[in-house]
């Protein structure tokens, strides 16, 4: 072995581990073993991302790669610059508009429906839509949480219309917006359930039963007049169309109805954008409805069907929130590995230190177990509430804990530099709160399995 080779080998060998040329190293041992033995144990240096991607059905693998390419090319370079709040009413920065235009042209804003209506590949239709969304969201989140939310909150806004199965509504609201997006003229949707007086109460039945709705629809000739306020609505300041849930006048949450509101309707205004901890490229907006007239044909899925539609939508959207967690955990892990190559304490790379090696292994294991949970839930055409909720709260906890561990391993370096891990933490923290706090999601698991839990005689339970 010449000098250069020796040096390269040394760089590849971590302190405490054998060089790959050592006869006792697993690589050498397997290389020298009988083929029957070596075929029983894998020791290739393929990335685990590749391994997972290749385990997917072909159209999904291709989709995952495309999402990754788009995220790397278009989201990652903008991540740092766009990580700042935008007051309501200010024009969208040119870079964001360009991103939305490109995303629209590339088909990322029209992927709730298969071709020829939308841009989901026809070959992917044997697999659930949620799985496709999870794959996309993980890739986007790993590049930038805020930009991911900017693009994906749009899908959430459109989801109740698509999930309602109301063909007329799809034809009236979704397809024209799809055409605009494909032409490179962004037309965004937003999803509005949360009200200042009711966040968790809009996400779980027990609270909803006792909640007095804040946004109310009054019947008038030809339609409805909406009054009240919604808050924390992602993309609410730039959305052209919003799925707004409101109760009928004089009734409770059981009368919740989904209304499609256009941003140019008189009486509608985005009042303010919140100053958030993270995911700043996407705004969280307070919306005011001041006697907004909404015609009858803007009711989606029928009167008093809103609560069901909301719960069904949440079931579909909580899995992608879990996938966001995967994206953040992955990015924190990748950054930890990158930095622990470069950083040294004393005369050692961080990566040479046992606690760092073990920390990295722990983050990897929790990331992969969370991915298993998310993908398992996403493989059902009709996601179960318990599975969606479990995936959401577990993967979001994993994400936050991965960022915390990364900070612990890297020290203040994790919070500085490109600020990647600090940003991941700030972004990931939101996944423990929205789409129902993790506490509400834990209770959602119990709600779903209520009859099983109250009949423990059944066996096996799980």
């Amino acid at each position, binding site marked *: 072995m010449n000098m250069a080779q020796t040096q390269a080998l040394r760089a590849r060998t971590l302190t405490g581990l054998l060089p790959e040329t050592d006869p006792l190293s697993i690589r050498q041992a397997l290389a020298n073993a009988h083929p029957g033995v070596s075929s029983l144990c894998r020791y290739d240096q393929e990335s685990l991302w590749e391994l997972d991607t290749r385990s997917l059905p072909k159209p999904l693998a291709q989709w995952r790669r495309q999402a990754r390419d788009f995220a790397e090319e278009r989201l990652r370079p903008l991540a740092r610059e766009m990580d700042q709040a935008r007051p309501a009413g200010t024009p969208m920065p040119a870079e964001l508009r360009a991103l939305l235009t490109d995303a629209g042209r590339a088909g990322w804003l029209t992927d709730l429906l298969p071709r020829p209506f939308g841009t989901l590949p026809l070959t992917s239709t044997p697999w659930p839509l949620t799985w496709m969304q999870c794959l996309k969201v993980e890739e986007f989140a790993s590049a930038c949480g805020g930009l991911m939310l900017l693009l994906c909150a749009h899908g959430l806004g459109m989801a109740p219309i698509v999930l309602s199965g109301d063909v007329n509504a799809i034809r009236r609201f979704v397809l024209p917006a799809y055409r605009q997006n494909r032409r490179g003229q962004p037309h965004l949707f937003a999803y509005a359930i949360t009200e200042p007086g009711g966040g968790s109460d809009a996400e779980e039945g027990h609270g909803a039963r006792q909640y007095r709705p804040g946004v109310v629809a009054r019947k008038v000739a030809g339609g409805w007049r909406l009054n009240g306020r919604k808050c924390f609505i992602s993309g609410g300041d730039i959305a052209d169309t919003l799925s707004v849930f409101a109760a009928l006048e004089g009734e409770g949450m059981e009368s919740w109805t989904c209304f499609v509101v256009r941003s140019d309707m008189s009486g509608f205004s985005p009042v303010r954008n919140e100053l958030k901890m993270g995911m700043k490229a996407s705004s969280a907006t307070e919306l005011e409805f001041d006697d907004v007239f909404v015609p009858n044909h803007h009711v989606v899925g029928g009167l008093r069907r809103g609560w069901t539609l909301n719960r069904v939508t949440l079931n579909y959207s909580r899995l992608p929130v879990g996938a966001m967690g995967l994206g953040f955990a992955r990015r924190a892990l990748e950054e930890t590995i990158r930095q622990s190559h470069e950083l040294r304490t004393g005369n050692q790379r961080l990566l040479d230190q046992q606690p760092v090696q073990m920390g990295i292994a722990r983050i990897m294991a929790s990331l992969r177990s969370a991915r298993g949970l998310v993908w398992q839930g996403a493989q059902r055409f009709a996601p179960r509430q318990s599975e969606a909720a479990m995936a959401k709260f577990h993967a979001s906890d994993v994400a*936050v804990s991965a960022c915390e561990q990364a900070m612990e391993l*890297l020290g203040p370096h994790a919070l500085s530099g490109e600020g990647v891990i600090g940003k991941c933490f700030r972004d990931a923290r939101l996944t423990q709160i929205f789409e129902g706090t993790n506490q509400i999601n834990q209770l959602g698991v119990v709600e779903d399995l209520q009859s099983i839990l109250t009949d423990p005689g059944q066996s096996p339970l799980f």
Partner: protein
Amino acid sequence: MIPIGQDEQLVTDQIRQFARHSLGRYRETPEIEPGADDAGQWIRECLAMGLFDPEAGGLWQDDDPASRRQNVLTLMAISEQSPALALHLHLQALALRVMPAPGTGKQVERLPWLSFGLGPGFPAHQLANWQPGSGARINPAHLSDWWLPATAGSALLCAPDYWERLLVPAMTRKGAQWILIRRADISQIIRDSLQAPACWSAWRPVSIQQAKRRLIAPLSPDGYRNLLGQAWLGQLAIALASVRHAADLACTYADQRRQGGSVIGKHGAVQLLLAELDRAIHLTEPTLEKLCQVPASELWWQAARARGDLHPLLCRGVNAAMQVFGGIGYMRDTGVESLVRINQMLSCLHGTPMTMQQLHQQRRLAA
């Protein structure tokens, strides 16, 4: 013994008033983050109060148990309103112990700033293990020159936005020394965001080797360890006070916000979050109290152990406080999210919990 968090006697009215009025004001306007100018003004007020004055028993001027306790309580009183400023004052006061230059007590610009720095050859937490002559954990390649590298590399100074003169430990040809660098003499500094609340940044001195440096004092292992111990003790106190503040906010909110048919404080889920906060505070308070009493020679390792155990708990506690708020906790308005961020920073600045635990174990094994 009175738990450390409740003893207000030792904090002067003047400091309490300063904390509540000068600092409390900016909490009311969350859209405006205080910047370097505000920090400068605050430090000026602290100077006027004699916080750095040795005669007036300024911060960290003495290290007997009673003074230590007073320092801790003063830092906590300030931290309840602004942990970033408390950290600021804490490290400036420690710098003055190393370099009690005449006149520094008068002008803000003359106050040195202490940074333990983070360099490839001389990371702060490893210094605690440093034995003269052994050089055991210091990269010999860096012994021959200033440890701050010429390249951006991994050198990182954590300091507030407001600093003019920096006091750093350095390994020189004359051995370990405190050196002073003027900001104006560093031709290129990259300012990094630490993603911590206002006034705090990370600085990467690109060309520090060309900067003019003044040797201030030799650095002895014992003196250095003692200083680290005080730094760590103060850091833990600042974290505790910020978490206590978060707990107050969370309890008040849990008592007001209604969801699920009652105030949220009645829900078991929220009670568990509050319990997480409570646990962190109740385990930290007596430890701090104890740390105020330990002999100077033991402070560094006892503080290291305490930081290793307690910062993660405090981080978890403040995170739980944020969760109590639901969506609004994610916004700047409540002030809790900034406490989450600064606790992350306090936890890993000057040695992470993992490093602290290792340090303590190494010391035990060596003993």
